[in-house]
């Protein structure tokens, strides 16, 4: 079997050689990467901001890994896994000979320690994702996870950043009283001993720069039969200003710049020295609509009527918005609850295709009169939000809506969403988890987040959501999500807008870098040729 694989690989390589002489992987070198914001604490269970979450996978490995299409899992640190017939036990076998970056061996104890830590609600904000776990135990390399009840998401969760494995010994040896103190000490020490990812943290200047060095003990193999990663390291510079980040790439000071504003994409695509990448993402841009009968100040809320919300959706020309804001680099939402790249996303497109006649009819049915004032809350300083507001103000004027703007900063917008003191405000979302339950819970399930602060509530939706959480049959689960999407589209508690890719500009020396639909920055197979 083994011989056959090697033979197959050799044949494939020989065949490919004439066409692709550069197939031999370039090894070594440091990739310089310009980020929009810095990490603060990269720990699987404490990472709670995207700049932290998206880097966890580079330093820490998970038991399972998401497949390239994002719809299932494959072996990671665990070389095999199975779920029992009754769905209440997950059995896994840890790969032999896995080492942490400092060369110490990983054992079942590390797995138990890491998962117990991850599901402790006193420690991790993500513990709720692992609520179904009853006990985790290890016997040598055999890992057993006993569940309280069947959980269709458990395998996905074992491939998610918060269940990545840390070294128990490193935590026991670290100074500090609480787990959080220890984590901070380990991070500040830039130790190689805590993770088993392709890299370890070897440099960190708060708010300025960060360095990853290759983990020489990493277990996954590259195309050349040697262990990954190909790079010696990654150096991150934090450059918050968009224009400066791009200039830094153009000046050759960095090899890659992330979060390229969409207005600059076509210009960079035309630059022969730059490889402009638009990675598919699970990011959706939408606007929660306050559906409560009365506004926070007690006045009647015209948006409480579903027909008005539908009218606003019909009256919004999504293609025009995409042209104005994204310069074409995006697509209208096709599922009301998630991006296309999410598992179980239904394609309901065109979702509220632009139809002014329909919109006007719905408005007159609802009896909403000319000059109805609606406040649109945007992020101050956001050029995108300013454009969206200006466009909507014009698009909705024929519906008799007098749209006024209220500009706030992020913290204020969050507070308003919580207290319900808004009519409509801009928002965005990227999945953290390879399962639709997280985003659907956020957008529609009342007990989770008051349906993203809209106050919308559907008993049927909530029941379906709770049932889906325990539904082990994939088809039945899919059907429940399909019905939730139908209900949500009909009720329109959001202004459904668009999906955007992750725009990353790479220098021509860079190959193999990937940003996943969840946003994770993957340097495992990246190379840089100098």
């Amino acid at each position, binding site marked *: 079997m083994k011989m056959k694989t090697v033979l197959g690989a050799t044949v494939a390589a020989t065949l490919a050689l004439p066409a692709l002489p550069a197939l031999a992987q370039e090894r070594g070198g440091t990739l310089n990467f310009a980020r929009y914001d810095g990490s*603060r*604490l990269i720990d699987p269970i404490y990472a*709670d*901001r995207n700049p932290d979450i998206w880097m966890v996978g580079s330093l820490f490995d998970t038991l399972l890994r998401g497949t390239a299409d994002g719809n299932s899992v494959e072996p990671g640190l665990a070389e095999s896994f199975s779920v029992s017939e009754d769905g209440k036990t997950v059995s896994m076998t840890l790969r032999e000979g896995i080492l942490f970056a400092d060369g110490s061996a990983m054992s079942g104890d590390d797995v138990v320690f890491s998962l117990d830590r991850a599901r402790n609600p006193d420690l991790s*904000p993500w513990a709720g994702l692992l609520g179904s776990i009853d006990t985790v135990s290890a016997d040598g390399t055999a890992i057993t996870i006993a569940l309280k009840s069947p959980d269709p998401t458990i395998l996905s969760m074992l491939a998610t950043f918060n269940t990545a494995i840390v070294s128990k010994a490193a935590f026991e040896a670290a100074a500090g009283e609480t787990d959080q103190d220890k984590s*901070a000490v380990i991070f500040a020490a830039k130790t190689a001993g805590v993770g088993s990812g392709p890299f370890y943290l070897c440099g960190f*200047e*708060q*708010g*300025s720069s960060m360095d990853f060095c290759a983990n020489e003990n990493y277990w996954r193999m590259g195309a050349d039969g040697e262990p990954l990663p190909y790079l010696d390291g990654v150096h991150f*510079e*934090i*450059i*918050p*200003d968009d*224009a*400066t*980040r791009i*200039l*830094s790439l*153009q*000046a*050759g*000071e960095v090899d890659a710049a992330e979060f390229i504003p969409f207005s600059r994409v076509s210009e960079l695509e035309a630059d022969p020295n730059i490889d402009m990448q638009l990675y598919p993402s699970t990011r959706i841009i939408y606007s929660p609509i306050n559906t409560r009968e009365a506004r926070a100040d007690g006045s009647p809320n015209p948006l409480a009527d579903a027909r008005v919300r539908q009218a606003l959706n019909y009256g919004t020309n999504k293609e025009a918005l995409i042209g104005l804001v994204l310069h074409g680099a995006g697509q209208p939402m096709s599922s009301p609850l998630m991006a296309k790249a999410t598992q179980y996303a239904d394609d309901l497109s065109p979702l509220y295709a632009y139809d002014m006649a329909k919109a006007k009819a719905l408005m007159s049915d609802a009896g909403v009169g000319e000059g109805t004032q609606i406040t649109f809350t945007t992020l101050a300083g956001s050029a995108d939000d300013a454009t969206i507001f200006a466009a909507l103000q014009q698009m909705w004027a024929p519906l008799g809506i007098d749209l006024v703007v209220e500009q*706030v*900063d*992020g*913290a*204020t*917008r*969050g*507070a308003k*969403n*919580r207290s319900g003191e808004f009519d409509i405000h801009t928002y965005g979302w990227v999945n953290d988890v390879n399962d639709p339950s997280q985003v659907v819970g*956020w957008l529609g399930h009342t007990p989770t*987040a008051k349906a993203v602060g809209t106050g919308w509530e559907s008993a049927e939706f909530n029941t379906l959501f709770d049932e889906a959480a325990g539904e082990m049959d994939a088809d039945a689960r899919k059907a429940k999500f399909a019905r939730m999407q139908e209900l949500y589209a009909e009720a329109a508690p959001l202004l459904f807008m668009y999906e955007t890719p992750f725009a990353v500009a790479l220098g021509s020396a860079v190959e193999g870098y990937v940003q996943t639909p969840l946003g994770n920055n993957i340097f495992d197979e990246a190379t840089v040729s100098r």
Partner: protein
Amino acid sequence: MSSLTYIFKRLLMMIPTFFLVMIIIFLLVRLLPGDPAIAMAGDRASDADIQAIRERLGLTEPMLVQFWLFLSNTVQGDLGQSILMRTDVIDVIADRLPITVFLTIYSVALSLLIAGPLAFVAALNRGRWPDAVIRTVFQIGLSMPVFYIGLVLLTFLAAQLRLFPVGGYGDTFGERLYHLFLPSITVALYTSAIIMRNLRSAVIEVLDAEYVQFARAKGLPSRLVLGRHVLRNALISTVTLLGLSIGNLMSGTLVTETVFAVPGMGRLMLEAIFARDYPLIQGLTLTFAILVSFVFLMTDLFQSRLDPRMRLQ
């Protein structure tokens, strides 16, 4: 009164100033909508999580108690823990302070190097073409926003000609001079325009003064007249202006440090405000206040050296 007694008196007078600054900043950050617990926990956290964080941060205490804690800790040199960075505010500031101070001194030095000679050239050629050219160029510099000049310089000198780096700040003194040249010259172009205009008219005024006419009539060499009489007297008002400009420069670092990716206190201040990091905002404001007070004190001391009529009292 000796200079030492004067300095001591001035330092004593700063205490009520800082006390006022502390009251104002304490109230201002709390008047901002949004709270640090939400900023910290993220939009997705539950209400219970947020309440727990608020309790942990001491935000549920009455305002007076919070202010007393802030005041008594600050007096003991404890500015608290940054919510954003999860480390002591004093350490975070100690990290960033040298960068901002370096940038400011560098900008001031460049401003003087540009403005000083040109002001003299313009004044001595009053009404002729060198004067007109210098004044026009500076007028343009004055009317362009700093971030725009910064981007233009970055685009041409850094990205296209690659004479200077786009970002970073270097490790050695020489590297810092090189890395921080573009941000410093950007600020200096603006500041030097203000100083040049002031110095030019001061020089013209002094040149017309009787004692200068007299010195010249006495047959003193022109270098001596300009150096001893004109420069010294013309500098008096310029020093005041320079002191005020340094105050402005400090607030300007918010923009410059962001555009040029310099990890100094200005950029930190922006991050702290967006995250509603009360302890960090308070600590940074206090540090800026101390720096500005120090600059004003130095200005006054320097001025009394230049002009004996301005006695220290």
